[in-house]
C-alpha cells in the first residue's frame, strides 16, 4: 500500500472508531473500548522496551499500578486537584524508572528480569500491607472520573492512544530509536561504537514508564478504584501476552493484542470461569504457528514479497 492510501485508511478508521460508537451511545461498549485503549497504551509502552530495546522487564506494571494508587491517594485522601495528582505521577514514575535504569547497569538478561520481578513483587506486597496508605486488599476506592461522561472519556481515550502510538512510532524511527535497536541487537558493540548505552536505556525506560503511568491514570479514572491486583506480576504477564500475541516490535501489534485479550476475556468468561486456561492454550497455538504474532500474519498478506528493510 502507498503511504498516502495508508494515511487515508487510517484517518477513515479513526473517524469510524470515534463517530460510530459515540452515536450508539452504549456505556457498556464504551467501557470496553476505553479499556482496550488503556491496555493498548500500556502494551505499547512495554513494546518500546521488549520489541525495540530488548529489555525484558517483569516489573513493568509498577508504573501502571503506582500511577493509579497515586491518583487515588492524592485525590481521594488528600483532595488534591487532578492535575496536581498527574504531576505527582510524573515525579513518581521518573523516580521508579531511575531505579529500573540502575538495575540495567548492574544486571543483564535473565538476571535483569529476575530483579525487576522482585521489585514488582515488592510494590505488590507494599500495596497489600501498607493499609493506611493503600487500603490493603480492599484497595483505594472513590476516585471520581475527570471525564463528564463515558462518551467524552471514550473519545479522549482513543485520541490519547493515537497520540501515544504516533509518538512511539516517531521515537523508534528517530536517530535515538535506531540506537535502541542496536542495543537490542548487540548491546556491547553499540557501546564500542561510542554510544553511552546506559543513557539510551535510561531514556527509553523513562519514556516507557511515563506512558505506562499514563495508562494507569486512565485506568483509575475508568474503574474508580486502585487495587493490589494491578500491581501483581500477573498484570505484567498479561501485558507481555498482549505484546507477543499481537506482534513484538510492531507498535500496532500490542493494540491488536490488547483488543483480542479484552474481547476474548469477555466472550470466554461468559462460557467458563477458566477462560484464562482456554486463552493460554490459544496463546501457545498462536506462538507455534505465528511466531510474529497477529500483526505478522497481516504483514505477510499485505506485503508478501518484501524483504525486511528496517
Amino acid at each position, binding site marked *: 500500500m502507498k503511504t498516502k492510501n495508508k494515511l487515508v485508511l487510517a484517518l477513515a478508521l479513526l473517524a469510524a472508531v470515534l463517530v460510530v460508537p459515540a452515536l450508539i451511545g452504549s456505556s457498556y461498549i464504551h467501557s470496553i473500548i476505553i479499556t482496550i485503549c488503556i491496555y493498548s497504551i500500556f502494551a505499547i509502552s512495554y513494546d518500546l522496551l521488549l520489541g525495540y530495546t530488548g529489555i525484558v522487564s517483569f516489573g513493568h506494571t509498577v508504573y501502571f499500578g503506582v500511577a493509579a494508587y497515586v491518583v487515588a491517594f492524592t485525590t481521594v485522601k488528600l483532595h488534591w486537584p487532578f492535575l496536581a495528582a498527574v504531576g505527582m505521577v510524573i515525579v513518581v514514575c521518573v523516580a521508579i524508572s531511575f531505579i529500573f535504569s540502575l538495575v540495567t547497569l548492574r544486571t543483564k538478561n535473565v538476571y535483569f528480569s529476575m530483579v525487576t520481578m522482585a521489585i514488582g513483587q515488592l510494590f505488590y506486597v507494599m500495596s497489600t500491607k501498607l493499609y493506611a496508605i493503600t487500603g490493603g486488599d480492599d484497595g483505594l476506592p472513590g476516585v471520581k472520573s475527570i471525564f463528564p461522561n463515558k462518551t467524552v472519556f471514550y473519545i479522549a481515550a482513543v485520541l490519547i492512544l493515537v497520540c501515544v502510538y504516533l509518538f512511539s512510532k*516517531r*521515537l523508534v*524511527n*528517530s*536517530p*535515538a*530509536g*535506531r*540506537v535502541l*535497536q*542496536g542495543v537490542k*541487537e*548487540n548491546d*556491547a*558493540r*553499540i*557501546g*564500542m*561504537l*561510542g*554510544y*553511552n*548505552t546506559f*543513557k*539510551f536505556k535510561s*531514556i527509553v525506560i523513562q*519514556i516507557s514508564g511515563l506512558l505506562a503511568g499514563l495508562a494507569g491514570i486512565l485506568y483509575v479514572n475508568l474503574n474508580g478504584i486502585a487495587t493490589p491486583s494491578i500491581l501483581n506480576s500477573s498484570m505484567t504477564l498479561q501485558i507481555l501476552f498482549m505484546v507477543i500475541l499481537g506482534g513484538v516490535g510492531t507498535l500496532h501489534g500490542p493494540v491488536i493484542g490488547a483488543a483480542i485479550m479484552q474481547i476474548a476475556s469477555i466472550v470466554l468468561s461468559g462460557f467458563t470461569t477458566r477462560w484464562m486456561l482456554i486463552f493460554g492454550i490459544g496463546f501457545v497455538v498462536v506462538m507455534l504457528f505465528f511466531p510474529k504474532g497477529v500483526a505478522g500474519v497481516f504483514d505477510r498478506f499485505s506485503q508478501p514479497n518484501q*524483504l*525486511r*528493510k*528496517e
Partner: protein
Amino acid sequence: MSEEVLRVQNLKKSFGGIRVLEDVDFSLRKGEFKTIIGPNGAGKTTIYNIVSGVMKPTSGKIFCKGQDITGLPPYKIANLGLSRSFQITNLFPDLTVLENVRIAAQAKGKDSLKILLDYKHFKNYFETANKILTMVHLTGKEDLLAKDLSHAEKRKLEMGILLAMGGDILLFDEPTAGLSAEEVPELFKIIEEIKDTKEKSILLIEHKINIILGISDTIAVLQNGVLIGDDTPEKIQQNQAVQDAYFGGGAVLG
C-alpha cells in the same frame, strides 16, 4: 618523529592467576602502521581488549593522545577517536548491511539523542555509510541482513563498521581471520588504501607475515605475553630473539 597517539605502559594482565601479559610496553605514533604478530594465545587480542576498555588491566596504563584512558568505559574511548574491529565478527545480525554501517557513522555525529525526528532526515550518515560500503566492496548488498552475508562479506562489514566510526586510530584484529587464500588480498588492498590516505594511525594484528612485512612501518612481536621485539620490518627480521622464535627454523606463522 611524530607525536604518540597511543601509549601502552607496563601492561600486565592475569586471568585467575595466569599471567597473560607481562610488562607490555609500546607506543603508536601519529600516522604509523604497526603490526603485532605472535602465536595463538600470545595475548594480542587481550591488549586490544584493555586498550578499548572491554577489560581492565591488572596493572599498567594506557594513554590516548596524552590522556590516561586506563579503565574508562568503551564508549568514552571510542569517542576519543579510537576505533577497533573484532577477530570474531561482531555485527548487528538482524539489521541491514547499510544500517550496520550507518549506525556506526551516526555515533560520530551529534544527532543521536534526537527522539522526534525521522532518522532518514539525517542524510549525511547515509552518505558516509554508502561511501564506506563502496570502499569495502559491499555495494549492492546494502539491503541484506548482516546475518545473511557470507563469512568474507561479514569480515568486510566488520571493517566497514570500524571505518564508519571515523576514528583516527584504527585497531584491526585479524581482519582476514577465517578467509581463504583467495579472499585475503582483497581485504589487504582495502587496508593499504586506508594507509595511503595517511590520515590514520593503524595497529594491526595479523598472522600472515609475508604480507605484513611490506605494509608495516614497525612490527611488534609478542610471545607468551612478552614483547620480544618492536622495530622496523628489516630490523625485526634480524632480531635474534625473533629469529629464534620464528624465522630460525623456517617456521611459518599462523
